[in-house]
């Protein structure tokens, strides 16, 4: 139970914070994966949108580890800030995605609910990251890690096909980046809380 010892040590431990962050990031990725599969099945079957999704993610400007050794050798404070930067970079596109899909009659209700769920939960996870970074490395918050998104027109303008490409790219990149965030957090949890050996 919370604060069995009363106010004196009434604080969530780093283990508590990381356990919740990892449960949330794992969950967010699964919802993003479902949303991507749903979109692909409904709108993209046999249309090879993937070929146009290459180099399409607005967050590719953020240098991040691309394999296990790079991730394990990245210093914890840096990796934490990368996660924070990726999440902050998705605030704007998720807001627009939520409002755009909500107004589109042809979007299935399930898909709309998933997008809203992802937006709500990434917002929750961002709050958690602020708390974790404050405990792990108080002075290390780095606001420079951020990628602006300028894809709104691709969701709203042009013919139906080009708009579908715009949505496909967004769902593709969301799936990728939520996977990155989840993987980095699982590594950080083992590193910071379990001294590298989960």
């Amino acid at each position, binding site marked *: 139970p*919370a*604060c069995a010892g009363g106010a004196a040590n*009434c604080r969530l431990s780093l283990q*508590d914070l990381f356990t*919740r962050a990892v449960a949330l990031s794992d*969950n967010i990725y*699964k*919802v993003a994966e479902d949303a991507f599969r749903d979109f692909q099945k409904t709108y993209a079957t046999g249309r090879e949108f993937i070929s146009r999704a290459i180099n399409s993610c607005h967050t590719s400007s953020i240098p991040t580890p691309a394999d296990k050794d790079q991730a394990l050798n990245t210093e914890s404070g840096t990796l934490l800030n990368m996660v924070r930067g990726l999440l902050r970079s998705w605030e704007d596109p998720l807001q627009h995605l939520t409002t755009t899909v909500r107004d589109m009659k042809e979007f299935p209700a399930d898909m709309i609910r998933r997008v809203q769920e992802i937006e709500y939960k990434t917002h929750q996870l961002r709050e958690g990251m602020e708390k974790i970074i404050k405990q792990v490395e108080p002075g290390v918050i780095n606001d420079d890690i951020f990628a602006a998104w300028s894809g709104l027109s691709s969701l709203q303008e042009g013919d139906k096909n080009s708009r579908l490409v715009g949505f496909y790219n967004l769902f593709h990149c969301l799936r990728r980046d939520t996977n990155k965030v989840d993987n980095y957090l699982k590594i950080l949890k083992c590193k910071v809380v379990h001294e590298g050996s989960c």
Partner: protein
Amino acid sequence: SSPGKPVILKCRSPEKETFTCWWNPGSDGGLPTNYTLTYHKEGEKIIHECPDYQSRGPNSCFFSKKYTSIWTIYVITVTATNQMGSSASDPHYVDVTYIVEPNPPMNLTLDIKRPEDRKPYLWIKWSPPTLVDIRSGWLILQYEIRLKPEKAAEWETHFAGQQTQFKIFSLYPGQNYLVQVRCKPDHGFWSNWGHENIIQIPSDFTVNDT
């Protein structure tokens, strides 16, 4: 006289996304008394007031999604105030992750199964409460079943882990059985028992050793 000391009874969340606290007002000293719930978050100084005293009935405070965070501990106090003075409850500490009490499971169905090569059994199936985000694994629930012959005094309970189905082999033939299911998250409280269901066990249902 000045009011008695309120007592915060409990705080519960159905799904880790909202939560509600209830308190016992205590004596009002015979005067019109006003109750205020205030809280601050661990590590912060700002004192907030209850965002919604209405939605969950008298002597309650409802924290919607906007006010609910799983990243902090809430230190909550209820103060009673009337003309003669005021009285504050002891602080109540809340970690939303640990106060989850889900709604009961639903769609309880009962079936007698007779596989060729094995003994007959009662097959019990149910589905998780809708509100809870089970599908994507955000909340993991465990289940418990209880059943008893209609006129029996005592329930027989079975822990089903995370399964949403269960087989019962040993039953008394010819009896009407009442069955109920409840659920609990890994850190949290048992829900109420769900809707009761009833089934008649056929008279040729062989009794097994238990």
